[in-house]
């Protein structure tokens, strides 16, 4: 059972989250080439080891999280909000 430490909700079970996608691919600009868009939508590094990915706390606070996780051991190194504009946990802005 993966347990992901949501910055807002704390440690929660895997089944409260849904996996999003590889968080290292960056969405190209509107005027980028078709090749860039192809890479963004279709190709993945798919590393065996540390992997940065998006998870959605859909069964909880509904925040999207950027999670750094090892795909060999499943160890989680870091979890942070995907959005810089959501109020940081604890202090409101």
């Amino acid at each position, binding site marked *: 059972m993966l347990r992901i430490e949501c910055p*807002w*909700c*704390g440690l*929660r*079970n895997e*089944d*409260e989250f849904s996996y999003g996608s590889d968080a290292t691919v960056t969405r190209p600009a509107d005027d980028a080439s078709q090749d860039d868009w192809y890479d963004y939508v279709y190709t993945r590094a798919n590393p065996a080891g540390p992997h940065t990915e998006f998870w959605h706390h*859909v*069964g*909880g*606070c*509904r*925040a999207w999280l950027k999670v750094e996780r090892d795909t060999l051991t499943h160890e989680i190194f870091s979890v942070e*909000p995907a959005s810089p*504009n*959501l*109020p940081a*946990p*604890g*202090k*409101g*802005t």
Partner: protein
Amino acid sequence: MPDANTLPARKSPLSNYTREHIVDYPRVRLSERKALTAIQVLTFNGKHAATAEAIGKALGIECSTAPGTSNSDGKTQVSWNGPNGWMIVANDAEAGFAPGELHEKIASAVGDLGAVVDQSHGRCGLRLSGESARAVMEKNSALDLHPRAFGPGRCALTSVAHMNATVVQVDDAPTFDLYVARSLARSFAHALEHACHEFERG
């Protein structure tokens, strides 16, 4: 603001349970809290603290930006409801609000700091209480509800009986208020009721 005496009566999602309590055992009790007003607030970029303050002032109840906290004056509950918002819940009659009054109050306090959305008819409120309440929750939720980890004034958005729900601890009895989507109310109540059976004979 619609006025009380013309509004039709509200038909709650669990109106099919005719008993006063869904479960009424020596050490655990489960009941629906009908006709609640539930106002969701979502704050715009950079307006979080300001909104919290405004709501706090308007209601005279602390509106905390600390995740997983819930404050109440015994009638109106102001619960953290995600990174940029709260859910404010009251039973108008108990809290002495005219229909729509709470909504108005919050809307005018929040102004354009955020969005104020009426969820009153979209949420079903249940109250689970008694010595065995934790044991019942243990069967349906992975939250750590041990006094060392949770308690009155705490709330959580989590999955209960495989359905998205909000859990608010009200007191040390312990008493938990549970909120779930209206359309799921019967399945939700059914799951909790089932989990209570073991404690029928105390």
